[in-house]
């Protein structure tokens, strides 16, 4: 790296053009460059996302009328199971950390790569293996898994469908997620640029750091739990077989010890993205930097302690219901703090309603609805009525799709020019936003209403009194899909044939990714930057 001739040559050679040991496709799938790995993830995750969307679209279409509309009950059950597995394990859990985290975490903290580049590539292979297994399980004889993504025993032990492959896939995907989290934690601890103390670090790395801890600590618990279902199916161990003494409630505990924090694995990185977007497009420093940073940690901590609120109706002791409900309300507070701080950041800003900013504002709105309906579900007596109805389906789509989904979309529009050195069509991007935003609300809001009226979730059929809400919801899904089609078209067109740009800082950001070239060079920085100021100084605004 002291060789000047190499350094000069690099200045003009982006990571996209960089020639490593291999060229062509191998130059990508054997590359340990964090940016190339991010693109690999982007490609694969997008593909699975579109399959998941298609399944969701078909589920909604089936529910357009009572009785059979397009598919039978077994197909329907498989569809919502596979939709859940794909969307959660293949899209939202890896999504933001694997794509934007991989690409921007090292750049934002002034590092040349992550701490373990080869491990990073390995996680991508694990991810691909896991995702291929998920798809395989759908097509093998025996039939697609139909247990719901929650794999509740005893059903997941009894059903004749291809559970073992699906469970192994989830196990492998969990492992991939753990290793990504581990890599990020070590990267943040060891590879921050000189001068970048913890509180000079941008908020997206902060969010990834908190997420990393959740990934490392809780994911193995679902790993072992899923492994036990496999053992149960293969050997009949008896640990999860009620007729041999197995306790179905204990399974739910073990499952949710992971799967509730997993919600924060999905949401916290998206919150990190939004913190970046809000400051950049308000062109001012973030309001309450430390409050936002600490609230990420607080969410990670308390979020790991509230799993029982998925089980209020499962017959837990009153003590457990009391404790879990109480902590659930505690976790609402750091989320509220984030929302207030983001909103306060807008005050006296100079706001540009660029496409990413529209997604960021929509994110705050949708997340607020998701969070507030979460409060309703945390209320014991209301949850008894609302749990396992479409209310909760609406709630978690607002929370998960509204955050991770809109976070990914906003992030894509924000960073695509940086990642590929190409511009997208802003008009089209805005059109896609409005379709997505309006379609989203028409699709998911009716679920709150019919959930309160008692419509159970995961139901293939329903009583006629709920039909009107299902119809509205299905129409909403069509609008949403139009928005998605426009979004995908806009982004693919940008990457393939968008107008080239090499403008380093096209949106007035102040974090380090705006001080590297567009697209970044192979090692990001010619010289390791030395950090002296805070991450969002915006000195020009000071009086």
């Amino acid at each position, binding site marked *: 790296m002291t060789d000047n001739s190499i350094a000069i040559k690099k200045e003009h050679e982006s990571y996209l053009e960089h020639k490593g040991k291999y060229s062509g496709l191998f130059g990508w799938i054997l590359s340990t460059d964090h940016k190339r790995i991010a693109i690999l993830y982007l490609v694969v995750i997008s593909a699975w996302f579109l399959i998941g969307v298609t399944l969701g679209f078909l589920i909604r279409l089936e529910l357009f009328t009572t009785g059979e509309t397009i598919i039978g009950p*077994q197909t329907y059950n498989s569809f919502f199971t596979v939709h859940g597995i794909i969307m959660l394990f293949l899209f939202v859990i890896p999504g933001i950390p694997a794509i934007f985290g991989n690409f921007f975490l090292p750049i934002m903290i002034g590092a040349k790569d992550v701490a373990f580049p080869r491990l990073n590539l390995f996680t991508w292979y694990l991810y691909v293996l896991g995702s291929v297994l998920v798809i395989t399980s759908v097509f093998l004889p025996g039939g697609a898994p139909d247990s*719901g993504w929650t794999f*509740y025993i*005893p*059903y997941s032990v*009894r059903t004749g469908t291809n559970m073992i492959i699906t469970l192994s896939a989830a196990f492998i995907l969990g492992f991939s997620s753990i290793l990504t989290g581990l890599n990020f934690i070590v990267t943040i601890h060891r590879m921050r640029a000189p001068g970048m103390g913890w509180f000079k670090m941008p908020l997206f790395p902060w969010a990834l750091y908190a997420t990393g801890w959740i990934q490392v600590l809780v994911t193995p618990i679902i790993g072992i739990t899923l492994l036990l279902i496999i053992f149960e199916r293969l050997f009949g161990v008896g640990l999860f077989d*009620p*007729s041999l*003494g197995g*306790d*179905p*409630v204990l399974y739910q505990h073990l499952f949710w010890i992971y799967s509730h924090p997993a919600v924060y694995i999905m949401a916290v990185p998206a919150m990190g993205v939004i913190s970046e977007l809000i400051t950049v497009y*308000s062109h*001012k420093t973030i309001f*309450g930097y430390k409050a936002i940073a600490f609230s990420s940690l607080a969410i990670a901590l308390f979020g790991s302690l509230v799993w029982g609120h998925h089980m209020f*109706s499962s*017959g837990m002791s*009153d003590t457990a219901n009391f404790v879990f*409900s*109480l902590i659930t*309300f*505690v976790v609402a*507070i750091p989320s509220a*703090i984030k*929302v*207030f*701080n983001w909103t*306060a950041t807008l*005050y006296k*800003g*100079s*706001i*540009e309603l660029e496409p990413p900013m529209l997604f960021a*504002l929509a994110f*705050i709105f949708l997340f*607020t*609805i998701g969070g507030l*309906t979460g*409060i309703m579900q*945390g*209320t*014991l*007596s*209301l*949850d*008894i*009525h609302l*749990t*396992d109805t479409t209310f909760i389906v609406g709630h978690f789509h607002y929370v998960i799709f509204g955050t991770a989904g809109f976070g990914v979309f906003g992030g894509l529009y924000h960073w695509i020019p940086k990642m590929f050195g190409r511009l997208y069509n802003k008009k089209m991007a805005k059109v896609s936003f409005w379709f997505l935003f309006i379609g989203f609300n028409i699709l998911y809001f009716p679920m709150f209403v019919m959930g*309160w*009226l*008692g419509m*159970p*979730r*995961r*139901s*293939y059929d*329903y*009583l006629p009194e709920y039909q009107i809400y299902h119809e509205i919801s299905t129409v909403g899904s069509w609008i949403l899909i139009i928005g998605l089609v426009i979004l995908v078209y806009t982004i693919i067109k940008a990457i393939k044939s968008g107008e080239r740009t090499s403008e380093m800082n096209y949106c007035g950001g102040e974090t380090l990714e705006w001080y590297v070239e567009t697209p970044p060079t192979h090692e990001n920085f010619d010289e390791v930057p030395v950090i002296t100021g805070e991450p969002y100084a915006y000195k020009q*605004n000071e009086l």
Partner: protein
Amino acid sequence: MIAQVSNYTQSVDNTFIIVTGICVFFLLLITVLLVFFSIRYNKKRNPKALNIHGSTKLEVIWTIIPTLIVLYIFWIGWVDYKELANAPKDSMVIQATASMWQWKFTYSNGKVADTLYVPVNQNIKMKLNATDVDHSFYIPAFRIKRDAMPNTNNSTWFNAEKLGSYTLFCAEYCGLNHSKMITKLKVVSKEDFNNWLNK
């Protein structure tokens, strides 16, 4: 609004209205601020931003106020739940057994039915069990739901104050015909009930 059929549903609905009210207030607050700031401090109108790094006073306020509010919500939810958690001692006990994909109700005299008949104004304790996989006993009109699972002893209770016929769902996904696992709760007068029970 769905039918209110007992004291319990009345208090749950009150809680629902209070909580929804608080939620709508906060949603409106945030939404109005988002829209107002986006317009008022738009780049065209306000080309130069002003840095505001934060305000400890505000942070404290918007930590403490939400904390108090959520603690209050937690408490009213718990009070309702507490009532649901303990069936009165004088309850009439009915055993509900769930299996794929039907309900079976066994009365103290051994009578078995697939529709749940109960007398009006009587505390009813439902003992819940399942023979195969997880199910859930759910009557929206009564705002009660409790999982019925193999190898566990769950129970819930209710008191129907109005005659009528109400839908009883299985709320926990249980396989192929989960959505067809619906039956009726029929609330009848004490006389009719005794006639039916001893028929």
